């Protein structure tokens, strides 16, 4: 009887192996072709940035933006480097905000997530609702702007680049879910029985075990901080505190200004000095701003894929 079953299984395998998922049929090549088309749709615009950044300004004026420029040039990159101090300052600001914001956010959010996931802690229910309300309802950008600048007097403070994106409901939910599903309650109990106090239990045992979810949330936070331009546009106008994204925004404003005012006197153009945006220089700046993320992202891909999946399941 058993042998018969085995035989049948064997036969099944033999018979159906050829039509398994892995066969390289003609259809697969067609599918590959379409996937390649979509990949090009995604990648070519980014490639264009790189090409334009190394195209000579004359070639752009003559032929427009092109994938096949007549003449290459390093002028764009060179003039970006001439921004010099401002670029370095902005890099510093952005990196500071990314590091401090991500670290502060992960720490405060995982502590909050730990607290509201403790059984027997009756305030947890209130804290959960307190966490949810901001996702459901908020005062709006204008109210935030007036409160932050008019009442807290934080205009031009880096706190306004950090705090508004620091604690988000969704991220706390992701971390709480992870604690509830992936960290055995017995382990935390055992630590307590062994005499560890609450702080030791959390920082010594729980937090290290949360690494996968911290990496996922941390990467998503870091990109959000890196790419944030809106808070900077609203709250920052001092050069010493301008993050990279605001630099891009200002370049665009300058281009607009020059485009819309054809009769800007030469003196004014001269006064703007190095600020007069050339297309190749602009694209070179774009590269400088998006570059680090492009380089870092493939290494973190697995984490944020995990983060998405963790986030889709609620405990």
């Amino acid at each position, binding site marked *: 009887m058993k042998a018969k079953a085995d035989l049948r299984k064997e036969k099944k395998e033999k018979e159906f192996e050829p039509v398994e998922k892995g066969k390289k049929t003609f259809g697969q090549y067609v599918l*590959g072709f379409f*996937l390649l088309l979509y990949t090009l749709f995604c990648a070519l615009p980014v490639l*264009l940035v790189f090409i334009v950044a190394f195209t000579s300004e004359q070639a752009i004026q003559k*032929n*427009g933006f092109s994938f096949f420029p007549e003449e290459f040039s390093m002028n764009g990159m060179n003039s970006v480097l001439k921004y010099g101090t401002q670029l370095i300052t902005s890099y510093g600001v952005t990196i500071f905000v990314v590091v401090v914001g991500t670290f502060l956010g992960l720490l405060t959010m995982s502590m909050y997530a730990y607290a509201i996931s403790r059984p*027997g802690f009756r305030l947890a229910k209130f804290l959960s609702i307190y966490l949810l309300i*901001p996702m459901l*309802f908020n*005062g709006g950008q204008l109210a935030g702007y007036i409160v932050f600048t008019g009442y807290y007097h934080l205009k031009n403070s880096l706190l306004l680049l950090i705090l508004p994106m620091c604690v988000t409901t969704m991220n706390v939910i992701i971390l709480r879910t992870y604690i509830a599903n992936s960290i055995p309650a017995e382990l935390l109990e055992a630590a307590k029985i062994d005499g560890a106090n609450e702080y030791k239990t959390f920082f010594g045992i729980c937090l290290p075990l949360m690494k996968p979810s911290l990496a996922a949330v941390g990467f998503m936070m870091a990109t959000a901080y890196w790419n944030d331009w809106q808070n900077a546009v609203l709250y920052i106008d001092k050069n010493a505190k301008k993050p990279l994204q605001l630099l891009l925004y200002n370049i665009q404003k300058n281009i607009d200004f020059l485009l819309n005012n054809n009769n800007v006197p030469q003196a004014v153009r001269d006064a703007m000095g190095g600020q007069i945006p050339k297309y190749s220089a602009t694209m070179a700046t774009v590269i400088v701003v998006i570059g680090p993320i492009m380089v870092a992202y493939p290494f973190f891909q697995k984490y944020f894929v995990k983060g998405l999946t963790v986030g889709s399941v609620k405990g």
Partner: protein
Amino acid sequence: MADKKAVVIKKKKESLWANTRKHVPYVIFALPAFLILFFIMYVPMGGIVMAFQDFKPFDGFFHSKFVGFDNFAFLFKSKSIFFRMTKNTLIYYVIFTGVGTFLNVVLAIALDQFVFKKAGRVMQTMMIVPIFISYAAVQFIVYAFIASDNGLINRVLGTSISFYSEAKYWPVIVTLTKIWNSVGYGSVLYMSVLAGIDTALYEAAQIDGANKWQQIWHITLPSLVPMITVMLLLSVGNIMRSDTGLFYQVTRNSGALYEWTQVIDSYVLDAILTNPNYGFTAAASLFQSTVGLVMMLIANATVKKISPENSLF
């Protein structure tokens, strides 16, 4: 008498105060995030009073004159602005959600079916890249394609369409930009569902003689339906919100395009940066938040019914 009562309660359940005293460390853990939420999210909620005031920054929330529902009357009367931005917000929500979900699913299935796994992974990595480019940078990329003098499209076609002053092209431009930006990323979630399908199902279908299309139709798609439903429902809560960067940065906030590009979020941002009509803007924000709240509650209740484990609360 009072003491006796307290004892009785304690027997049933310790008081909230006693419970909290016992768990002081948890309170300390929760405190930093609690305070950040309080000062960043809760205090500005008080700002909704502006919607009912003739708000003057100098007078602040406490001394500005209350005008009842005047701002809302003004809002609903101002057909051109209010209806335009609400219309655009809703239209783009529908387009982005519809087209976006469709493409997310198609792309996820395509990548899942593709047998050249290594090539598939490389392609997927490249498809996800655009989500990591901020709109402050994206707008330069879009500009390179559609600029009237140097733009790639005009040069290739030999035309000189000035895209930045003709609103009619923008539903297409904005939608393409959004697809470019988010579809690769959006499909990841669906791929993780596909990875979890029991391969025995496919084998059984092959035994029954089902071809690839039949397998996709009868096995792959049905297994995605729960996730699609949940994602759609949850997105309903954001029906009044838009990608501010897409509509403010990519369009260069060009007034000539507002007919097809002004959404509530970009209107509010622009208003703040260019001396707002406070009452009007606050009324628009409150309208946006309230509709969002109602939709979110409805959506969550629906998800709870269909698939409780995916509801948000």
